[in-house]
């Protein structure tokens, strides 16, 4: 999750009760160039990714590739079983009766595309990860947290704390991670 190396050992967490304050604070923190920043919110706050400059998710690519791949595999399997491995004429239809194969082809595409989307989501989020520390129990309830980890030799904890305190945060705390 954190690009900076070595792994940070300290971080500053600012808690807000208003998602708009978090949005502004995130945009401000981004201007200051804090690396490895993250936010913790009870619901997906609209525009937060843009404010923090997080890249767009690559998960839809998985859906596309796996969906098409599933459909191709499904169709190939039907053709192989019906026309090559054990060719039987059914209902006077051609061996490779494409129209009759469409429903299963479609279902195979959706099945692989959908299950792999969930798998990709879990992989992208590094889940399951039951050991991840819970920074604050209210972050899944009614608090919105901005998380700035230690990012290198020029890390100035006092400055970060001061900056975040000025953004309308209810509380700014330094945590060990």
């Amino acid at each position, binding site marked *: 999750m954190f690009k900076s190396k070595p792994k940070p050992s300290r971080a500053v967490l600012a808690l807000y009760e208003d998602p708009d304050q978090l949005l502004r604070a995130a945009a401000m923190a981004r201007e200051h160039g804090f690396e490895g920043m993250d936010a913790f919110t009870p619901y997906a706050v609209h525009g937060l990714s843009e404010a923090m400059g997080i890249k767009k998710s690559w998960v839809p690519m998985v859906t596309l590739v796996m969906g098409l791949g599933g459909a191709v595999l499904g169709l190939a399997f039907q053709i192989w*079983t019906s026309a090559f491995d054990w060719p039987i004429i059914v209902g006077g239809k051609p061996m490779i009766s494409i129209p009759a194969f469409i429903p299963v082809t479609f279902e195979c595409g959706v099945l692989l595309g959908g299950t792999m989307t969930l798998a990709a989501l879990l992989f992208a989020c590094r889940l399951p990860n039951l050991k991840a520390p819970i920074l604050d129990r209210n972050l899944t309830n009614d608090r919105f947290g901005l998380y700035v980890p230690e990012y290198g030799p020029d890390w100035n904890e006092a400055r970060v704390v001061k900056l975040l305190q000025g953004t309308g945060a209810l509380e700014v705390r330094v945590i060990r991670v």
Partner: protein
Amino acid sequence: MSDRAIAVAAEETPLIDPRKSFADVNDDVAAPLERKPGLLWKVAFGIALLLTLQFMAEIAYQMYKGIGIWGVNHPVGWAVDITSFVFWIGIGHAGTLISAILHLFRQRWRTAINRSAEAMTIFAVMTAGLFPLIHLGRTWFAYWLVPYPNWRFLWVNFRSPLVWDVFAVSTYFTISLCFWYTGLIPDFASLRDRSDGWRRAIYGALSLGWRGSERNWQHYERAYMMLAGLSTPLVLSVHSVVSFDFATSILPGWHTTIFPPYFVAGAIFSGFAMVVTLLVILRKVFKMEDYITLQHLENMNKIILVTGMMVGYAYATEFFVAMYSGNPFERFVFLNRAGGPFAWAYWIMVGCNVVSPQIFWFKRFRRSLLVMFIVSLLVNVGMWFERFTIIVTSLHRDFLPTNWSYYKPTIFDFSVIVGSFGFFFMWFLLFCRFFPAISLAEVKGVLWSAKKAAAPVPAPASAKEKTHV
């Protein structure tokens, strides 16, 4: 942000009281999970469990004795089993429609009801899935439906709609489950963070360690959108494929091209009715009136009205085409439906599905809990009889009069029908007790929009200037 505000402003009444806080949402939705079950829940669960047990006993006896214990006979080889299969699959459609299609169309009123509707889908498809299995007669050979390398060197016949059905229904169940679980992950995390001990361990495991990181939300939102995009054509395909079971046969009354759209409309119709039935009870028993508002229910009732008329239109088209086709067999089947020995089933269907929803033209009745509860029950009865009419009346008098017969259900048929309801409600009641019945994360998003719409004043003290120290 502005599109949210517009969406909220356009609603006749706010979807949620803007005075509620985020914490209120958690408290209200988690409350039923954290207190001891009430007497009402225990009684309902007890009944559902008993019905399920007798269902299992019936299945065991039927596997031992054979499907002859049902009323099925020579021309009527499909009856209550397939009727119930199509009925329950249809019920399942509303969940995916609400969660996927309304999500893509940005209908934000779906947020309060999508969780329970999706749960309903899962349980309805589970119930439906039992029927093809028990109707096989030799249930222990069910795995023959799946193409796997075997010592008979045979594959399944991929040109058969019955095999399409296997793929469609199992895909539908799997994807619905993925979609439902994806939606539940953040809410399990919310429950984890407000509980201790074994509850914390269980909800923590179910949440997979979700922490609401924005880097995760970014993937989550896109993945959710992708699943919605996949589910949308999927839900339309499933009932189309179910209708192919009939439409690709040559039996008059089944062999029609109108079936796929007609079945899909009927499925949405019956599914929405079942959602209304469940929500009216759920909001009352679990005191969710602030979240599942009359506005939500009214929207649902509008969809019931529309799809009810689509179904009515399909009945009329079917009848007209049969008359117009000049085909004496087609014509006979439809006259036999409306005036033959099963006319009672046909008119129950028309009365419940076409006539009863018309009351929803009036706003007063769309917003009356009693009226919508009764209509939703009637629609469910009507939709069960629709499938019964299609299946049994087409079969019982086919081309040769020497083949003709009547179908009479036995006590085991009734046992299957009530048993399937017991099985479905057993799961649903368990869901209401242990899972958040309303999507916390999504409702909070709507709540924030509602708050802003209620007080469009910018938040205090522009923080930006202050912080450039």
